[in-house]
């Protein structure tokens, strides 16, 4: 087990190195000058700026310096927020994205399993039809529409109630998180519901369920011990990447609900060609994703005894 874990860890580090290198060269290949602003600057000022960020050195040298700094855990200073270290930006804003993301994934995971099991149970009857309709809606309506509609509804609710039932944006208390987390987790919840439903239906027609029924096991036990536990496996598989995806992909929700998460820095950095922030956030998110995938693989073994790794 430990050997397997170590192997995965080394592979993960190689993956992160690959992500870092690909991002570095890809970013430099994108046309455009990261130091250019609205107003043209003199050659002297341009040279001063280039020297400050080390852009005056050859690309190979820049790459080595940059890899060395990453190894030390230093992502440098932002180009657009000239006084802030990228490490500070990640440290201040990632916990917010992560908090929102965790809540969203909990909503998505619990909701997905619950609705999925329900639809499978009531297959082709009205609860199934209604839920599956909502699922299709949840998958196909983009999050900026859902976010805008839910915020608009909250305004209506507050105005109708004559007081603040729920804040319509901002950050600070759990009430600020509730609606954004639901919106953020919605499409994942819809996806998981569908996955759970098909997985439940597949399991229900397997031999071991029939055997269990034939043995005369109570329906409750069949459902919880055999059907649910087996059907939940594919859901766990996608949960890892989904956690990373949700914590990193909150850009739209963060903008609409004025939440100071990392997502908006990530997106804006790319628009602004803010080299250090692009590098910092991409490598950080990459590492986060790699870690999540490893974690899920380990969890897998716990849920499914068949997937033991230490053969």
């Amino acid at each position, binding site marked *: 087990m430990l050997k397997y874990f170590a192997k995965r860890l080394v592979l993960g580090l190689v993956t992160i190195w690959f992500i870092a290198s690909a991002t570095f060269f890809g970013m430099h290949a994108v046309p455009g000058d990261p130091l*250019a602003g609205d107003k043209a600057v003199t050659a002297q000022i341009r040279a*001063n700026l280039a020297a400050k960020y080390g852009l005056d050195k050859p690309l190979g040298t820049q790459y080595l310096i940059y890899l060395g700094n990453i190894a030390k855990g230093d992502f440098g200073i932002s180009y657009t927020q000239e006084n802030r270290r990228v490490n500070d930006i990640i440290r201040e804003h990632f916990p917010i994205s992560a908090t929102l993301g965790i809540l969203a994934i909990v909503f998505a995971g619990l909701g997905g399993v619950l609705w999925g099991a329900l639809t499978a149970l009531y297959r082709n009857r009205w609860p199934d039809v209604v839920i599956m309709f909502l699922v299709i809606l949840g998958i196909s309506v983009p999050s900026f529409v859902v976010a805008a509609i839910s915020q608009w509804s909250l305004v209506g609710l507050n*105005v109708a109630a004559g007081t603040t039932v729920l804040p319509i944006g901002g950050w600070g208390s759990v009430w600020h998180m509730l609606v954004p987390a639901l919106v953020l987790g919605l499409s994942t919840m819809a996806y998981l519901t569908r996955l759970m439903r098909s997985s439940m239906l597949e399991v229900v027609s397997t031999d071991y369920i029939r055997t269990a029924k034939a043995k005369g096991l109570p329906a409750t036990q069949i459902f919880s011990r055999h059907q649910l536990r087996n059907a939940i496996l594919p859901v766990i598989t996608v949960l890892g990447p989904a956690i990373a995806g949700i914590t990193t992909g909150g850009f739209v929700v963060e903008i609409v609900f004025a939440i100071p998460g990392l997502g908006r820095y990530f997106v804006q950095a790319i628009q602004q060609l803010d080299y250090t922030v692009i590098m910092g956030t991409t490598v950080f998110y990459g590492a986060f994703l790699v870690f999540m995938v490893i974690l899920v693989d380990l969890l897998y073994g716990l849920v499914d005894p068949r997937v033991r790794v230490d053969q």
Partner: protein
Amino acid sequence: MLALTKNTSPNRQLAKFFIIAFAGVAALMLTLHYAGRALSGGSSDVSAVDEAANSISILLRDEPPQLDSSRATDAISGMVLGHVMEGLVRMGLDSRLEGAVAKDWEVTPTTATFWLRDNAKWNDGQPVTAADFIFAWQTALKPETASEYAFLLFAIKKAEAVNKGELPSSALGVNAPDPYTLVIELERPVPFFDKMLVFPTFYPIREDFYAATNGRFGADADQLLYNGPFQISRWVHGSSMTFERNPHFWNQDEIHLDTIHVPYITSDGTASLNFFKDGRIASTGLQAENLTEAMRMGWQIRQHRDGTVFFLEFNHRPERLTDNLNLRRAVQRVLDMEEMVYKVTKLPGYEPGVSLFPGWLMGVSAPLREEHPPQKVVPDLTAAKGYLAAAMQELNLTEPPELVLLAGDNPISNIQSEWVQQSLKAKLGIDVKIDKQIFKQRLAKMTSGDFDLVLAGWGPDYNDPLTFGDLFASWNKNNRGRYNSAALDALIEIAQTRLEPAVRMRAFGDIQQHLIENAVLLPMYERGVTYVVDPRIRQLKRRVIGPDPDVSRAYIDSSGE
């Protein structure tokens, strides 16, 4: 019977699952509630207007990248700095220049002298002196600072040499005979020098404080020393800011509010409107689609022209087809900017472009465009076809040419570039290829000259027509189409160096005429903003030059008149 038990039991299972899940989520949220509060000081849920606390709330479109006045270039930083700092002079509520730290001043062709008031103080109680201005300007000019707006200081003697690193910053032509007198030697006569001092680059910085911040000056609320009406008491990056009244500010009589909250930072226009409707912020911009709703709500809709002019710029490099005057004139005669503004983009508050000089610029005693009205370009298809035929002959073309239009990647610019494409194809048979690029890449292509036409814009830096007037000078780096005309350069030199207002304004009139006649650029529109303000708030000032919006002098009046 069997079916019934089969169904109810899993149902009970699910119900149990649901209850456990619900309890789990509740517990998790409670944990997050306290963890979240510990992790990040979030936005407090303040009201748009709080009479008891004498405070108002506004929204910022974006986080200020930094608040180091020697390096700030963007409008958001300018807005924040305008509330917490004060320069030598400022724009009053009547949009006229008035003394701020300076109580009096005099500008001659060779020098500018400012007499500082002795009761202007920093928020630690120390006086603001001439040395603080000298240090700020020297800092902005130092090559290591790499300030993008250092060029604004080039009117001061030896400033350019200091910025190039040829002279030490101590060589700069400014000195203080006593702590409250500032004498500036000018490189050349600058009739509008005092008006330039409104810009943040000219704000004071105190040396001992700057040195103590170890390069983090302006990065956080406590890394800045304030001499303006307010001071920043709290700044949670990307989330919120709080401005508190500065007890040491000299002019307390003009300041009415105790606190200005910035509870939200978001660029989303719809979210901003929702915050306004929910009573969270005191003012919001309106988009075209919100106008009917705003009218239904009975809000008083206000308009403001933000001073920026947008235009279609030609590439004048000799290897480009658009270097041909007849081709440019053909394009000039078919594009009807009134049609574009009123029928295509239909944005509230926008005005069709007629000149590079926007309508708000003042001439000698009346607006420049009234004293020197621009020649009206009437769309004329026959004339345009004639110009095109002449151009094709000169360029040895048998078919109408294909042109590349460089544009940004926002919705407005998409509509506009498609309108240009469609108009030129339908009316002249010119094929336009739209090259859509994100901001930095568009800039790179503009600088390298990789375009025939580009959708560009220009906003003012100071309150004088020259801020637009020298844009197409052959030496101006912002002249990305590389227009090069000795005749135009000569006119610009008159406007730059002569002191008599009438002579200068006539020169601007001639520059305007030259640009239209030679179709150097095609003015498209002047940008407007439509917005609403909470009716209880007075003296919220929208500006072209200076902090916009400016609530530093605002007050609350609930009498409802």
